[in-house]
Structure formats: C-alpha cells, structure tokens
C-alpha cells in the first residue's frame, strides 16, 4: 500500500470535518448562526465607527483646517468689545494670510416670513451684514439663486443660510420672493448650502454692508464720516501649515490697542473632536456582540456534544476502518472549528454589508478595520477549538466496541 502511513490529506480532512454539516445542514446552520450574529455585531460596530470617523475626516479635509475666526471678546470692564473697522484690511497684510472675509451681527434686528408674524417668533434666526467674498472663504456653495453682488449688496436683498431658509419655509427662489427683515421687505436672492464649520451662518439672513448701513442704520463714525461697520467676526484662511503662525499674530493685528479683547479660534477643532469621538466605538454594542459570541460558542459546544453521542456508530465504524484516536479527535475538533469559522465568515460578511449600506447612505467611505474582520475570524477559530475540544476528546476516548454496540 501507500507509504504515507495512513495520514489524511487536507482535502480528505475537509471532507471528513464537514460530514456533520452535510448530514445535518439545518442544525449546522442554526448553531453557526449564534457566532454569525456575534461576529456581525462586532464587525458592524467597529466598521461603522471607523466609517463615520472617515466621513468626518473627509469633511474636515474638504472644509480645510486652515480657517481661523477672529471675534470681538469682552472689554476689561466686562462689556462687549468691538473690533476696529480697519481690522480686516490690516489682517490681509499678514504674511501667512490668504483670504479674509467678515460679517457683522445686526443686534435686535430679526427676520420673518412676512410682516404678519408676531415679533416674538424669531425662530432663533439672526441678521448679518457680510463681505461679498464670504462663500469663497468658507467654502459654502450657493444652493439656489445667486449670492450677493456689488449691486444687490446696496439694495434690500438678502441671501439665506440653509437652516434659516428651512425655518422660514423657503425652498425655492423666484423674483419677488420677499421676507420681512428689520421692519421692511427684503427680496431673497439665494439660499446657501449648509456650513458645517460655521453654524451661525446657517441660521442667518445675510445682507450687504451698504444695505445694512442704508436700511438698518449699521454705521460707525470715522472722522465725522458715516461708514458701514464695524465687523463682528473675521474669517481668515491661513496658508496651510502656517495656521499657528498666523493665529499668534491675529489678535494684535486686529486690535493693536487691546489685543486681549479679541478671541481667535479654529472652527475645525470642533469637527476634529467629533471625529475622535466617532472613532471611539460604541462599547455597549460591542459588549452585546461579545455576549452573542459566547452564547454562540455554547451553542456549538452543545451541538458537538450531541453530535458525538448521536454519531457513536460512525465513530465505531471509522475506528474499524482504521482511524486512530487522534484522527477521531481531530475530526470532531475540525468540525467544530469549521462550524465556527462558517459562522464567523458569514458574520464578517453581514457586518461588512451592514456597514457598507449605512456608510453609503451617509455617503461616507466604507472602512472595515483589518482588526475587525481578522479578529472576527480568529475569534471564531478560537471559539470553535474551545467549544469542540471536550466533545472531540470524548469521541476519541470512546472504545470502538462500545461505539458499535448502538442501534
């Protein structure tokens, strides 16, 4: 006969290990299901948190981390401070500054759908005067209609932030579309896209500085002359990689006489923090996944013990055909591992599919961390080995004559 001493080849092992699965497929499927659910939960939790983090990081990259904001803080006496009118012009002169835009909040001016709305129902919306380059500095596109231009900035014309438009019930722009702003009618020229970096802009109706001067009386007196202003918030695009250098100079440039009255911040910090939070997976669901895995392992162990009892005659026959104790042990251990791995693979695929569906519905990149799927398969192998060890040892210790005595 052959010289290889009765050892089975890998293909034969696979066939022998799958005997129980082929003989009772439904039972095998049900016992693998527990492990599939556990693995799916773990992979989905890890995949979803990674994908949402990837989505936020992509958004941060799209919006840029080089946006800095300069705002008026508080004066030494605790009252509200003001930025000087010339602050934006001075900041433009700084080395590492590429673009500068600014807005000013119109205090006590509110915007309504029409003049019939009670004065108290402001809906939390604000009115801001804005420089004309605001959309390009903040990377906000115009969703509908047009942005302000030199001409409309002088007239009673407003552009709405996305949340403001929604609040006012305006989803289209057409000629003669009017809103009641600061006690008079303004035409709506356009609606902006959402602005994740600057939620204030979302909630605002934006008008030109000249219009703010003309219609809302927002003026400062400069050497006896009336000028629009001053700005309330200055948006600065710094040269990428030089944000810190620019940031350190902004306060004293904006207000050399009182730099301590100026607040400088980096709005992308908020998003970065959110991304870090999203990356920290939900430990509750992860814990549930682990519990499901343990229950699945108990299920597999249970099935294997029953299987060994039921298949005594098969064990006896295999011993009579020349299987060693070790081969019987390996057969049942391999069957248990195979069951668990099938569950694990199905679980990884289901978890990945769930992640893919959810992530693409949010238009995030689909990210399944390597640790998630490799860990899922590895834990399935361990569970299978652990659950199958005792039944396999029992099967191998069964004397062949006892095994054959059944039926």
């Amino acid at each position, binding site marked *: *006969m*052959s*010289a*290889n*001493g*009765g*050892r*089975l*080849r890998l*293909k*034969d092992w696979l066939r*022998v290990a799958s*005997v129980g699965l*082929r*003989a009772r497929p439904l039972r095998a499927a049900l016992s693998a299901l527990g492990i599939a659910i556990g693995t799916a939960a773990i992979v989905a939790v890890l995949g979803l948190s990674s994908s949402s983090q990837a989505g936020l990081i992509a958004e941060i990259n799209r919006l840029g981390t080089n946006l800095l904001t300069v705002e008026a803080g508080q004066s030494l006496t605790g009252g509200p401070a003001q930025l000087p009118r010339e602050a934006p012009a001075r900041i433009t002169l700084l080395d590492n500054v590429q673009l500068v835009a600014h807005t000013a909040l119109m205090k006590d001016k509110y915007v309504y759908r029409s003049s019939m709305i009670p004065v108290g129902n402001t809906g939390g919306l604000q009115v801001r005067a804005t420089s004309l380059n605001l959309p390009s500095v903040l990377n906000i596109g115009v969703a509908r209609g047009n942005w302000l231009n030199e001409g409309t900035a002088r007239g009673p014309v407003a552009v709405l932030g996305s949340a403001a438009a929604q609040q006012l019930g305006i989803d289209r722009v057409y000629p003669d579309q009017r809103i009641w702003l600061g006690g008079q009618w303004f035409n709506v020229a356009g609606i902006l896209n959402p602005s994740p970096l600057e939620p204030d802009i979302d909630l605002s109706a934006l008008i030109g500085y000249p219009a703010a001067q003309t219609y809302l009386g927002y003026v400062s007196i400069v050497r006896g002359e009336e000028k629009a202003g001053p700005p309330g918030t200055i948006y600065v695009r710094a040269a990428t990689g030089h944000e810190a250098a620019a940031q350190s100079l902004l306060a004293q440039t904006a207000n050399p006489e009182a730099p301590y009255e100026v607040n400088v911040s980096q709005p992308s910090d908020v998003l970065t923090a959110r991304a870090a939070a999203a990356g920290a997976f939900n430990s509750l669901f992860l814990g549930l996944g682990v519990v499901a895995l343990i229950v699945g392992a108990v299920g597999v162990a249970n099935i294997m013990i029953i299987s060994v009892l039921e298949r005594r*005659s*098969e064990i*006896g*026959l*295999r*011993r*009579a*055909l*020349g*299987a*060693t*104790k*070790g*081969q019987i042990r390996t057969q049942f251990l391999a069957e248990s591992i195979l069951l668990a791995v099938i569950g694990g693979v199905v679980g990884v695929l289901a978890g990945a599919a769930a992640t893919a569906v959810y992530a693409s519905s949010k238009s995030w990149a689909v990210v399944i961390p390597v640790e998630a799927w490799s860990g899922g398969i590895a834990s399935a192998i361990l569970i299978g080995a652990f659950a199958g060890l005792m039944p396999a040892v029992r099967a191998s210790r069964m*004397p*062949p*004559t006892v095994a*054959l005595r059944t*039926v």
Partner: protein
Amino acid sequence: MNGESVLELDGVTKVYGEEPPVPALRGVSGSVRRGELVAIVGPSGSGKSTLLHVIGTLERPSSGVVRIGGVDAARLSDRELSRLRAREIGFVFQQFFLAEHATVRENVADGLLYAGVPAAERYRRADEALERVGLAERARFKPTKLSGGERQRVAVARALVGRPAIVLADEPTGNLDSTAGASIIELIRELNAAGATVIMITHEAGLADQLPRQIRVLDGQVVSDTVKRAAP
C-alpha cells in the same frame, strides 16, 4: 487446505469488569489460513461477538496471543493497531453502517480513507469493488435509495476495497429477509472462491452449515471445529 495462517489465536481470554469479573472468553485457540471461509456460530451470550472484536483488534484480550498476518496485536500501540485494521481487516456489520449523505461510491471508497491511499486511487478501487459485488450501476446513488440487501452489498464492497487479509462479517444477514440474506451468503461464497479470507459470525446454525468450516462457541469456549469436505 493450503496457504499460511492469517489469524492465530493462542489461549485468548477476555474478562469484563472487576467486581465480580465476568469472563467472556475462557481460553480460545485456533488458526485460520488464507483463503478459508469460516463460520463462528453460537447462541447469544456465547462470547462470539467478543471473539470477533478481539480478532478485529477492536478490543484487546485479557491474556493470550492474537496474531494477524504473523503480527502479535497485543504488542501494538493504538496507532499501529489502527493501521493494521486499515490495511489487513475488513468489517461487515449487521447494521451496515453506511453514511446516508454520501454516495455508494464514496461509502466504499471510505474503506481506504485511513489506509493512506490518494483519493483518485480510492475511487478507482471503489468502482472495482462495486463491480465485484454487482452494484456498479448504483455507484452514484445514496444508500437510502437502496434495498437492505443492496446496502449490505455496499458494506461488503467497502470491506473488500482494501484487499484485506481477513474479512470479518458480524451477522451480515441479521437485518435482511431470507432472500436477501441468501444472496449475501452467495456473494460471500463467490468472493471467497475468488480468494478472500472470510470469518462470519452468526447465531443461525443452518447458515453456518452452508460454510466449509464451522467453529462452535459456547460459554466463551470453542466446543467444536469441523471442516466439511468441499462439495464437488
């Protein structure tokens, strides 16, 4: 009778349990030569099943010597005994013990699974063995589609597929009706005529009488060993 001994028993005893000890075999000796067809016959409880298990190396004797093809089975490890069973002994059981999810051909080929034979060779020899038992056209069927007699033929083919030194048949007709049983006995006689050494266990004296040699067992001892003159 010609040929060397393939099986030798010398003072074989088997005692079950400790308190009290139950002797199942009380000193059995004898030998079987290559090419013989032997019936071991006795009522239930006579120890014939234990004798078959000891001959088949499924159980070790309490004392005495069992030599299969000249090798003393008592000195072998589990691994060596398994190899001996895989290569030198074929079993046929009363309950057939076929795998229902596998085809007839796979069942027969599994007779060589633990003998270290590559798969292609196993299937080639399985087809050969099925040819010998007259079931070549049933090779791709599942055992559940076969009659009892056909199933036992499959089991016989599985026992023969490795060309073992000895085929041990344990009540091979016990689960069959008389027609199917007779055809299995006929098959065994044919295979023996073609050279296989067969030891059959039965409790039916009438069945044993049809075989050339009968060893009668009672209370764990051989009470007679008669060889019939081969019919012309």
